[in-house]
């Protein structure tokens, strides 16, 4: 299965994987159907999308999705080395060399963390656009009062998918940043577990396919939160596809996090003490700790509802308790918010010093605040449940813990301003996105305390205010920093520069549009518009009609700006100006390598930390040395080169 030769269309990993998924789906459907026939149970149902029955029973479709996922992983080839090891077969210890080069390698399994990082990033962008497209569909419906062209079922399906697919896109984006950058920044030549890394990426593809198949299997009506008993009683088969799609995306999160943690702890180069790591590595580590320890809970809770549907278990209804689900769900899904934003905030902290030509203000405080946020983030989940009917007294301690998040977050803001103050700022595209990110995350952060305070949240819970709030945190904490990162590291990845004019156009379209959208959402929410409704509350229509129209227009402007960015990336990757090694005069080690970065990163260069990461303005200082001249010759080989190959190309 280890394809080394150049082959045709069917040698592409993605194609093999999809074929595997289809085969697995057929096997799963057949297996359950035959089993039910043998047991004398009704094996099939009529094909009637109206009544939400799709020939095979729900259990058969779930078995199909599970086997499809497994077959996908087997066919794409990321598990084959493991099977070889079980049989006692040796595999190359540096398998990066065994894979194809050129653009095609991105479509097949590779164990190189940079290729996997790009795969994550590319998939993230595709999925991000898809989720944005869903948003545009239902935003168009909301532009005017009354139902125009969607029915209620379609509307519910669209906003549910917008939410969950966006979350998958963000998780993939976080994976892209951590995978590509963490090894480079700590002076490692790959992640600790390259095969697991590839597995963690590729499982996302069948997960996304399963998740999206819910559109065809009756749609969704629960929102991304999937609260039972609604999700348990929902007549739609798509519900199960939703649960299992998220389940496997969560598995990717757990395994990816494990890898990032191990890599950061074990593979730091000589001199790379924790307080000398780039701040992005700190945030990636904090993110991974959340991902590793919390994700199980959403997997578990969704699995339990799926079992309720398939086997009639009663965890959350009858003798069960629907509030239990909400606790389990938010025990992951609140910390997950910090999974989404921490790496983005790290990107802000990472890029600000470069563009301000000034050290990061209070490095240690910023580094530890990431851990502070991650830690407090575990103690606040029930603030999503202030009106849920959980024990009333619990609302007060959770209010205290929730508001405490403001403290480490405040440290970040003040430190950013401290970095900017007196900094010689320049305004290239990544710099603009970083500044935009700060202002938007500020909006998101400041709109948080009213939700975190129980009494005001009694009004705000489940309104568009919340929608505005979390879109501001997601755009400020992830989307803007992610684009900043894409522009900033684009030359490092592709070896070419993006188009600066298009980059700026993207920014100056997206920033004001986002402000209109988010402030508009907060306004209509305060006035009393609920979340997740297909039409305005009729009584409100005169007050909010104009705002609703503006939000829809803003959404389309954002969509347009993202398209511009994608065109920019695609065209520049092929025809952009050839990039120099260090276009930003950054001190970060990855900029000491040529663009694009060679397969084995630092190879056998002696990587050694000789200074602080952000000492801009300190003449003659450097962060890292990879100069063989400087390395003391009788020094034992640095830790990294133990993993480097004896000879690179």
């Amino acid at each position: 299965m280890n394809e080394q030769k150049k082959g045709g269309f069917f040698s592409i990993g993605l194609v093999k994987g999809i074929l595997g998924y289809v085969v697995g789906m057929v096997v799963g459907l057949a297996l359950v159907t035959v089993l039910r026939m043998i047991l004398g149970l009704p094996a099939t149902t009529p094909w009637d999308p109206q009544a939400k029955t799709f020939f095979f029973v729900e259990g058969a479709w779930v078995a199909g999705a599970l086997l499809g996922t497994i077959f996908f992983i087997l066919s794409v080839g990321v598990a084959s080395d493991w099977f070889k090891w079980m049989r006692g077969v040796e595999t190359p210890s540096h398998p990066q060399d065994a894979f194809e080069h050129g653009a095609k390698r991105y479509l097949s399994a590779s164990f190189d963390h940079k290729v996997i990082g790009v795969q994550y990033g590319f998939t993230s962008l595709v999925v991000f656009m898809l989720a944005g497209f869903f948003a545009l569909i239902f935003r168009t419906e909301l532009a005017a009062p009354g139902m125009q062209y969607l029915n209620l079922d379609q509307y519910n399906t669209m906003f549910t998918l917008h939410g969950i697919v966006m979350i998958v896109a963000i998780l993939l984006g976080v994976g892209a940043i951590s995978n590509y950058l963490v090894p480079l920044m700590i002076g490692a030549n790959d992640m600790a577990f390259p095969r697991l890394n590839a597995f963690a990426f590729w499982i996302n593809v069948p997960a996304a396919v399963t998740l999206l198949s819910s559109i065809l299997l009756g749609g969704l009506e629960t929102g991304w939160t999937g609260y039972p008993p609604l999700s348990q009683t929902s007549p739609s088969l798509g519900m199960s596809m939703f649960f299992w799609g998220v389940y496997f995306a969560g598995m990717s999160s757990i395994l990816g996090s494990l890898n990032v943690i191990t890599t950061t702890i074990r593979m730091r180069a000589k001199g790379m003490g924790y307080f000398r790591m780039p701040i992005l590595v700190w945030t990636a580590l904090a993110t991974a700790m959340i991902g590793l320890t919390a994700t199980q809970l959403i997997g578990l809770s969704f699995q339990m509802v799926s079992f309720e549907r398939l086997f009639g278990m009663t965890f959350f209804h009858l003798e069960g308790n629907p509030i239990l689900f909400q606790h389990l769900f938010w025990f992951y899904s609140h910390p997950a918010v910090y999974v989404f934003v921490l790496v983005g905030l790290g990107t802000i902290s990472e890029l600000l010093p470069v563009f301000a030509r000034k050290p990061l203000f209070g490095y240690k405080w910023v580094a530890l605040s990431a851990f502070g946020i991650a830690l407090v983030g575990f103690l606040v989940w029930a603030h999503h449940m202030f009106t849920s009917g959980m024990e009333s007294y619990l609302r007060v301690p959770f209010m205290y813990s929730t508001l405490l998040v403001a403290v480490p977050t405040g440290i970040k803001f003040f430190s950013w301003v401290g970095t900017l103050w007196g900094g010689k700022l320049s305004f290239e595209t990544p710099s603009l996105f970083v500044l935009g990110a700060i202002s938007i995350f500020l909006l998101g952060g400041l709109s948080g305390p009213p939700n975190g305070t129980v009494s005001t949240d009694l009004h705000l819970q489940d309104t568009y205010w919340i929608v505005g709030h979390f879109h501001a945190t997601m755009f400020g904490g992830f989307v803007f920093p992610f684009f900043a990162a894409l522009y900033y590291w684009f030359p490092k990845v592709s070896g070419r520069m993006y188009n600066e004019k298009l980059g700026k156009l993207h920014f100056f379209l997206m920033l004001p549009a986002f402000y209109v959208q988010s402030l508009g959402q907060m306004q209509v929410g305060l006035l009393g518009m609920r979340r997740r409704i297909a039409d305005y509350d009729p009584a409100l229509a005169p007050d909010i009609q104009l705002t609703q129209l503006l939000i829809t227009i803003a959404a389309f402007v954002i969509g347009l700006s993202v398209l511009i960015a994608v065109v920019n990336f695609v065209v520049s990757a092929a025809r952009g100006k050839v990039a120099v090694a260090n276009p930003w005069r950054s001190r970060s080690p990855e900029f000491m390598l040529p663009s694009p970065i060679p397969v084995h990163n630092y190879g056998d260069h002696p990587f050694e930390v000789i200074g602080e990461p952000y000492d801009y303005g300190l003449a003659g200082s450097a962060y890292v040395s990879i100069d063989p001249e400087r390395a003391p010759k009788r020094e034992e080989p640095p830790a990294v080169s133990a993993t480097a190959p004896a000879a690179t190309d």
Partner: protein
Amino acid sequence: MLCKNPPIINDFYKCMTEQLSRRVLIASSHPLFGQGLHRLLQERRQAGVEVVGMVATVDEALAALDQLHPDLIIVDYDDQALNRDEFLARFVEGESKLRVVLLSLHSPQEAIVYDRRTLAASQIDNWLEEWTYLDETQKPLIKQGDEIPKVENRRRSVMKKYIHIVVAAVLVVIVAAGLIFWLENGGTAALLPEAASAQAEPIDQLFGLEFKVIAFLFALIVVMMVYSMVVFRRKKGDLTDAEHIEGNTKLEITWTAIPLAAVLFFAFLGGQSLAETLRADPQPEIVNVIGQKWQWSFEYPVDSVAVDKIASPVMYMPVDKQSILYLSSRDIIHSFWVPEFRVKQDALPGGENMVRTLRVTPTKEGTYYLRCAELCGQNHTNMIAEVRVVSQSEFDAWLTGEVAKLSDPVAIGQNVYENNCKACHTIDGSKGVGPSWLGLYGREETLTDGTTVVVDEAYIIESIINTNAKIVAGYPAGVMPQNYGEVLTEEQINGVIEYIRTLVP
């Protein structure tokens, strides 16, 4: 140790002169290394180097640190007895800003300066000459060789620094004051819907305060950011870096402590206003609020011989009297929310244990809308009920009238319909989530399994009690609540049948 930010400029120079002589500690167990280096450095005395001691182990070095206060430690790189890594860990990665030089005698090329600078090996000699000046605040002063160089410049730059801060602070105050002025004069009121309950009062007060704090913080960060972007921005062609400022621990502690105090204060206020909204009045009006897909029903207990409660699809509340709402659901989670009342509470399925309460004291007569705030599936959007806040006398009159109505079976059936069935079954023949009731009685329906059935009393009763037994083709199973057999009395089910009989096209 360093002459950073002294309070008075004159002290700064005093401090500088004192520190011109730098103190060096040599760490080596090899006597020749130390003695040779000692002699070399003594020759450079004019540059202000003084060897204050020699140590052979890390522990000795630690002791010497306290007693001798060296500025620089030179470590014998070749000495196996000395653990270089430990030196680095203690003196470079630790808090103190000591400089450590590692010197090796194996080859003249090998010396590494662990002070955050990269120097080519050939520069080491120069570095030894100059390292005393390398602190950026001191370097230009010493380089001049002038006793009091550029005092004016320095004073000016310090002045300039403060002027920037003052100007930015004034701008922050102006912007924040403008926003707060707007909030005070109608802004807050425009952002929130009309307040029509006693519970809304403490909540709106807190909103008002929160909005002001948000306005201030937004002004603070954004003004400082924009000021930096505009005033300090990189001039064209300027490739130099900005001033090397690593941070300021006092500032960090300040902006940790103040927000900490502020959030604790806000949490305290939040707790107080929550308590206000929960305050119980004696003898409130009791209302059972029952949610189901996708409609609301309100039950009022009555003292009557015929019935113990009446049900209404419209919520009536007497003004200025607290109503206690007992919220429950027949199927999935719904949520009670009238924006004008501010407070919100989910209605949970699961029987008596899951009943939740909410206290609302309406303060203004009028019609409001109860909107289900918890996503409840397909028709969530339209799960809206009317709430009429009326005077006590009107309320009493309405209640008596409702009780009087409940003798005619058709009226009972219609009441059941409006409180339970109308979200899914129309009475005008149009298709809903379930089949329409218009002309239902006596109609022949095709079921999902292909068989047909004529709608009669038995079929209607079966469909109410055992909802999924016979589903009409084209409609999904499992949507209708399963517990009507327990919820509805025999009299009510008969009423429903009588009511359906009257619905002929």
